[in-house]
């Protein structure tokens, strides 16, 4: 492994203490992010895709705890005290969330929310910070930024709020931007605008981006590499082309087949993955996907397939790899 990764995650495991016992939401996840790269993290609700990054950013709920290692460049950041972590998060690593209304403070004007981080982290004066905030709002396509910066979040539409969130995240020129379902709450035409904006910004700022989403269409258009999660574990990784044109894991294959396509008519019934997503409190021994898998063998219920690397930068956690 070279050390020019910007973010290195090793053996990350995150568990929550619940009244019904311990739940492992993220289990032994390893990956690295290079500068300027876009990584898509795909999975259904409860697959652990968001919790990986909540762990990294120190944003876990109180009953959650993580083990393993997360390095930003060469600094270990997992489980750092908030004061230390604040030197990195929001500055070098930023995160945007699905619902922009709940992540903005409704009582504060956008100007206050945006300048705070610059004054705090960059030592700018209020005036300098305001100018930078206006410039950034302008850059993300908010018309009349100089006036609108003095408005409250409720005065913006959903798409505009998400632009404000993106502008806020980019204020300190972060090297890593984590976007958690940034367009899920938006209409398709507005989603297209935001995705275009993210693509443009990536070109301009060369920010390494993590795109957490359940939408395989969004990943296809935006990401270089893809990591597919199921039941708290990574089940497949590879370049975007590998995943879409030559998927190896039965879950990836099933997900891609079950998507109705807008670009061609399908007269047959959709392929549907049978059954339900697994209950993390009650994962079966062996492979978490066994109950829904069309290739299941006795071995799948006896032992758990490990993530096995093959070719260049690809890996899949399925016993079918052994036979290939």
């Amino acid at each position, binding site marked *: 492994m070279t050390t020019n990764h910007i973010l290195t995650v090793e053996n990350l495991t995150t568990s929550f203490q619940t009244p019904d016992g311990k739940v492992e939401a993220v289990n032994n996840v390893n990956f690295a992010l290079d500068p300027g790269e876009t990584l898509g993290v795909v999975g259904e609700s409860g697959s652990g895709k968001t919790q990986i990054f909540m762990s990294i950013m120190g944003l876990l709920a109180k009953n959650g705890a993580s083990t393993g290692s997360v390095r930003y460049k060469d600094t270990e950041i997992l489980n750092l005290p908030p004061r230390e972590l604040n030197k990195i998060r929001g500055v070098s690593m930023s995160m945007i969330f699905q619902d922009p209304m709940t992540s903005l403070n409704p009582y504060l004007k956008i100007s206050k929310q945006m300048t705070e981080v610059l004054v705090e982290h960059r030592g700018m004066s209020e005036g300098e910070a305001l100018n930078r905030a206006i410039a950034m709002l302008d850059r993300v396509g908010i018309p009349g930024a100089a006036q609108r910066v003095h408005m409250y979040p409720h005065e913006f539409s959903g798409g505009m709020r998400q632009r404000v969130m993106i502008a806020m995240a980019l204020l300190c020129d972060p090297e890593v931007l984590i976007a958690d379902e940034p367009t899920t709450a938006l209409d398709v035409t507005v989603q297209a605008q935001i995705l275009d904006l993210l693509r443009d910004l990536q070109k301009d700022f060369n920010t390494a981006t993590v795109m957490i989403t359940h939408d395989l269409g969004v990943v296809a258009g935006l990401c270089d590499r893809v990591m597919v999660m199921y039941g708290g574990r990574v089940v497949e990784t590879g370049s975007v082309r590998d995943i879409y044109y030559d998927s190896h894991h039965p879950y990836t294959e099933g997900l891609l087949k079950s998507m*109705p396509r807008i670009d061609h008519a399908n007269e047959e019934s*959709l392929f549907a993955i049978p059954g339900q997503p697994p209950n993390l409190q009650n994962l079966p021994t062996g492979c978490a996907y066994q109950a829904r898998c069309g290739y299941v063998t006795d071995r799948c219920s006896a032992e758990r397939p490990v993530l096995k690397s093959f070719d260049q930068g690809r890996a899949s956690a399925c016993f079918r790899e052994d036979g290939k």
Partner: protein
Amino acid sequence: MTAINPNTPKKDSSPILSVRDLKVHFAIPGKGLFAPDRQLKAVDGVNFDLYPGETLGVVGESGCGKSTLGRAILQLIAPTEGKVAWLGKDIVGAPHREMQPLRRDLQIIFQDPLASLNPRMTIGEIIAEPLVTHKPELGKEEIKARVKRMMARVGLLPQMINRYPHEFSGGQCQRIGIARAMILEPKLIVCDEPVSALDVSIQAQIVNLLQELQREFDLSLIFISHDLSIVRHICHRIMVLYLGNVMELADRDSIYAAPKHPYTKALISAVPIPDPEIERNKERIVLTGDLPSPLSPPSGCVFRTRCPFAKDQCARETPKLEHVSSNQEVACHFHESI
């Protein structure tokens, strides 16, 4: 796999539902204390026919009036103007006593599967409720037998009949909602975003179930959705709504192969395709701006403020929905030139 959509709609028969110039306007209190009420035109003059066994997709962005339209058809919201003819008889403003027997044939499935189920009723009680209301002559045993049969049909284990909604996952709750809608064997179901809240792998299951039920019971569906990929898969005809106005109404193959309205074109091109080559190289029409407030819609064509092809005429005259072919209608002054 069996062939689905074998052109089930019986266009030669008479429509089961005819909607004419349907309008739903809401009065919104004015801005000042004595200011007059303002009109929010949620649905503003919608016309269509629905045939037995047909699925009509209603698509549009949030706030376009698609859910209001669905509810107004079922008389769950009183229309302001217009006609909704069910089997030839206008049901707008029909008194409760006339409406009640019709409701057997008119059902609805909601978006949020858990929120639409009473948490204090067992799923057996939930699914049986329409039977108890509409067929009081049935005995307890008969009702239970029918509920169990319907549960099995929608893919729920009949022995779960005494469980409560919170014990089920989202996909299973949606199956309960479908069982409740299907128990009276209705002729029409309005599906209001039935799969939007579900995970990708579960969406396909529910879509397939709806299609199977449609064939089995010769159901007509009004499928309200913002997801144009699913609509392409399940619908025979598609209506595109924008600020309460129909922009385009056409059969599925025409609208996806050759959309005529600039809004339809933009909507279709905005849907991300799960194929990196196609998605990265496709032609995109990215609309600028957001949906205008429905309280002060633009003059003339309501879409003109976001339309890349808007001209002066668009601000002056409201385009009418015109036939461009026997099965495609468009409301745009310039549909021929763009």
